[in-house]
């Protein structure tokens, strides 16, 4: 049911994955985690099992990355590969098993954030894309978009400037504010390009969270409803052979379309 961006990992089948993979992308401080929390609750109320996941949470390397970042000594190629390792670990141990079991997987960032960060740091776009080619293509990618002008007050008044989110490894001679501005502008530029290339659904992240939530719900409904309708029709009140045949036809029709 799912396919990767061109590279198959040994032992990791994707064609039997029945769940839905939904990605929330966007720069730092744009409100992704709030939305994930709201969406998870809503989806569970609807009867969907949900796995929410994000970057650097893998059992294998999550801690290693955090520790290495504290020292601020990672090179840009090393950092990209460390993140890719973390992603592969979560993909194999969390995301794919959940999708196989029919979960809705909500992921806070995906390979696109990793690519954008690496490219802002001047790494070869071809190389960066290749590293992540084993990732399954999501069912939907929602991009919460915001301009750098709106982003700055959020950083100033909520969490302060973070070393990495300000790209201080790139512009170490600047102060945090100038660096943040430059870095996030470059990042937004990369996101805009990726949005086109990978068909993001762009959502304006300036309105209040409720408004964004409604838009996301509508988008996710579109992905879930055809499947929901089909699932409902497979449990007819009185099972009939004719009904079953119809369903099989429907499914193979679907397969033909995909092929």
């Amino acid at each position, binding site marked *: 049911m799912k396919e990767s961006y061109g590279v198959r990992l040994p032992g990791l089948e994707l064609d039997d994955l029945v769940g839905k993979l939904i990605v929330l992308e966007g720069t730092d401080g744009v409100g992704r985690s709030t939305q994930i929390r709201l969406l998870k609750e809503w989806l569970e109320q609807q009867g969907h099992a949900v796995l929410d996941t994000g970057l650097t949470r893998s059992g294998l390397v999550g801690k290693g990355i955090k520790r290495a970042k504290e020292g601020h000594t990672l090179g840009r190629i090393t950092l990209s*590969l460390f993140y890719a390792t973390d992603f592969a*670990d979560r993909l194999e141990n969390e995301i794919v098993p959940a999708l196989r079991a029919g979960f809705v997987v909500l992921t806070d960032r995906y390979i696109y954030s990793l690519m954008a960060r690496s490219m802002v740091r001047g790494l070869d776009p071809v190389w960066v894309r290749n590293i992540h080619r084993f990732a399954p293509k999501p069912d939907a990618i929602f991009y919460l978009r915001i301009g750098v002008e709106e982003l700055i007050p959020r950083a100033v008044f909520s969490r302060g400037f973070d070393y990495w989110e300000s790209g201080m490894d790139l512009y170490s001679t600047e102060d945090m504010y100038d660096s943040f501005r430059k870095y996030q502008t470059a990042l937004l530029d990369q996101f805009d390009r990726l949005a086109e290339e990978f068909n993001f659904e762009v959502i304006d992240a300036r309105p209040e969270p409720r408004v964004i939530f409604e838009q996301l719900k509508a988008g996710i409904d579109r992905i879930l409803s055809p499947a929901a309708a089909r699932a409902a029709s497979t449990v007819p009140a009185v099972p009939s052979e004719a009904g079953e045949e119809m369903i099989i036809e429907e499914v193979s029709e679907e397969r033909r379309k995909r092929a």
Partner: protein
Amino acid sequence: MKRYGDHRIPGRLFVVEGIDGSGKSTQLMLLHQWLKAEGYGVVFSEWNSSPLVKDTTKRGKKKQLLTPATFSLIHATDFADRTERNIIPLLKAGAVVLCDRYIYTAFARDASRGMDAEWIRELYGFAVKPTVAFYFRVPLEVAMKRINDARAGFKYYEAGMDLGLSDDPNESFRLFQGRILEEYDKMIPEFGLTVIDATLPIETQQQEMRLMVLAKLTQAKQLRVAP
């Protein structure tokens, strides 16, 4: 980001490759001693030794958490750290850098674990192309005898036990290293590896190696001298 073959740096990079028990580490150690005695500024870099990444790799191996994909990526991460913080700056400074195992080890192992060969090559696209890459070719039986004589048993990943080829470590090692040998053979023409017959006497191999290294050093103008 400079790619394989694009780096123009004054130093010289010599790497040794081969399966476990091929004797490559011994040969590199002898080369190291000689270069030091000759007065070159020479630095040794080992596979899988980045201080930042080592703990993660160690834990992954000990708890057997690694799949072919994460095995491949964590080793690439380790190699990237050594390349960025060690190998490239040293070569820029005009050092002679010696590596025990290089990207060809990853290509051979990862392909033997079923990873996409082209993908791995691109993954390591940032590596500096060695001045000479020596490949110590040895028949599997000879290598196995040497290892068995030297220590008891094989390690889990070294024997490819994660692939489930056989429950017997000896048999698994034989099958896995056999695959790796095939991969190395394919890489000889692909990357222009310099083949050394690792069944010859140690002295003879070292002699061959020193002649080739010397030829590359005399062409170089700005090599650093040992402090």
